[in-house]
Each structure stands twice: as C-alpha cells, then as structure tokens.
C-alpha cells in the first residue's frame, strides 16, 4: 500500500470510530463498545523528548491521553496542549494515574530536542514523542489516525500538516476507551476521567 492509501484507510476507520464516540458522548454511556473501537490499539516505538525510547508497554499501569500534532502548529496544537495541562492540574492527586502523550506527526522538523523545548512548557507531565517517518507511520496505523503534508507556499519549509485532532484515552491495561473530540472543554475531560479512575479503584 502507498502512504496515501494507508492514510485514507486509517481515516475511514476513524470516521467509523468518530461516529461511535459521538454517540457515547451524547448518551453519556460509560464505555465505547463499537466494532471500530476494537481496531484502535496503541503500538509504537518512539523517542521521548528526554531522548529515551518508549513503547506502549512503558505506560501500562497508567491511564494515557494520546494526541497528535506538530510544534510548527500555532493554533490547534497549543490549544489542545493547554486543555490537557488544565486537565492535569484539575485532576489533583488523581493526575498521578494519568500520562499525557503528545505524538509528533512531523518527524522532519520535530526531533526530541525540539519537543523538549516546547511540550514541557505546557505541563511538566506531558511527554512529547517523535521518531523516524517509518516509526510515526507505524504508530499512526495502530491508532488509526490520519496525517498528511499539505504543500503551502507561504508556510515555513513550504508545507503545513493536517492531522487527526481528537484525544485518545487508553486504560491502565492499554485498552482503548474513548475519544474526546477537538474542543472538548477541559472540565468535561476531567470529570469523565476522574469518574473512570474512581470506578477502577
């Protein structure tokens, strides 16, 4: 398969998933139970902004909030990072049970050192992850997310990135739980997550 075909296939899966997650958000049902949800798995080998290589197994035992972006994105990526930072602050002691992961889809520009000067400014708990183009493509395929380079003459380096902007929640066993759509207010994520952490303890 070409990269484009893979991207499109992943987008279709996320479309199905998005519909499921939307239904859950509206009905306030506790769990996602769509067939599409079972397609989403966290499987990756990426380098953290601290230079340490991580796989999904390193985060088992914690709830993980996974989202995608790139540091040359001045609008939506800082917005999501700031929302997640607010969630981590508002969770209080429960925040110890949660690990937010910001995965770059822009391997050409986002080296670990670039993430190191950017991601922790939002919240010290957020870990930035990046990798080779192949590593990011493999991670994207496992999460069923879509990303692409959009040529843009005026943009720095001549391109901008389009990418999936939802936040993915995984439970401490590494199982996919749900999506939070872009723009979900921090208090809504906090109360949902807090209830799930309580229910499991």
């Amino acid at each position, binding site marked *: 398969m070409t990269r484009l075909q893979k991207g499109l296939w992943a987008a279709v899966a996320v479309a199905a998933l998005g519909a499921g997650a939307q239904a859950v958000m509206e009905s306030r049902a506790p769990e996602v139970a769509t067939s599409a949800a079972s397609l989403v798995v966290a499987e990756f080998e990426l380098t953290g902004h601290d230079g340490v290589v991580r796989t999904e197994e390193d985060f088992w035992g914690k709830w993980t909030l996974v989202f995608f972006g790139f540091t*040359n994105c001045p609008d939506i990526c800082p917005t999501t*990072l*700031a929302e997640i*930072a607010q969630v981590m602050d508002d969770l209080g002691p429960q925040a110890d049970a949660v690990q937010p992961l910001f995965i770059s889809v822009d391997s050409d520009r986002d080296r670990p050192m670039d993430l190191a000067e950017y991601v922790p400014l*939002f919240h010290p708990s957020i870990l930035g992850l990046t990798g080779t183009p192949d590593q990011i493509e493999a991670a994207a395929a496992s999460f069923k997310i879509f990303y692409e380079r*959009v040529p843009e003459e*005026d943009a*720095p380096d001549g391109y901008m990135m389009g990418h999936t*902007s939802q936040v993915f929640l995984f439970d401490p066993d590494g199982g996919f739980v749900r999506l939070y*759509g872009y723009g979900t207010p921090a208090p809504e994520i906090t109360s949902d997550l807090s209830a799930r952490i309580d229910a499991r303890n």
Partner: protein
Amino acid sequence: MLNRFSRAALVLGLFAVAPPVLAGGEDVVVEDAWSRASIGTGRPGVAYMTLRNTGAEPVVVTGLRTDLAMMPMIHSTTTDAQGVTRMSHMEAVEIAAGEAVALAPGGLHVMLMDLQRPMVEGESYTLSVIFADGTEATVDVPILGIAARGPAN
C-alpha cells in the same frame, strides 16, 4: 465551536454576493486581542481577536501588517467529520454591517509567519488590519503565556 464555523461559512457566503460599496477601518472595533508567547523565532506565532463592524456597510479584511512578522496572514482551521484538522489561508474575510467575526482557537486566526523577534510573555506589539478600501485598524496585542487559553480580562 460549530457556531464559529458556521459563522465563518456565513462570512464566506456573504462575500460571494457582496455589494460593491464597502466601508473601511474607521467602522471596525478590534476587541479582546491576544497572542501566545513563542519559543524563539523559528515557528509561526498566532494572534486572536474579535473584529466588530459598527458601520452600516460590509467591510472586507484583505491583509495585515506588523513589524513582528514578515508574513502575517489570516488562516482558517477546519476540522472535518473524521476529526482531521487542517489550516488554509484566507485571502479575504468579510464582516457584514453590524456583525462581528471572532478569530479564536480552532477557527480563524492570525498566523504570524517569519517572526522578526521572539514573542515574550508580558510584552505587546502593534498589528494593523488592512481593509479593501485601503484603510486600517490598528491594535496593541498583548502577549500571554504559551499555554494561554483565552484573552486576559
């Protein structure tokens, strides 16, 4: 959010049938302008604000100018049904008479490309909004923290 997108769509729609008579910057009030701090000058910066047209004629924003960035432009962020988000350049943004257009996170924004100096929290800079008739509205934009979520009150 939907409201913001539908409003942006409405703005575009109106532009297609805009009457030839257009007012300019003297009728536009710029409210709640703010920016996030940057790290150095290597990545684009962003500015948000509300542009309120208090006049009786539509106005069209055709450009921006600031000594902070060589290439300031209005971008639109859109998120499709699959949750994929993209940015695109807006050549013109029309504001109907008596209406306001919000530039806010996740929607329309001022993209500050080719920064001439770092954007430092606590400082501010001057941004001019240029209209189709050549007039301008100038605003002082305060720079908030990198993780700011909205304008300072």
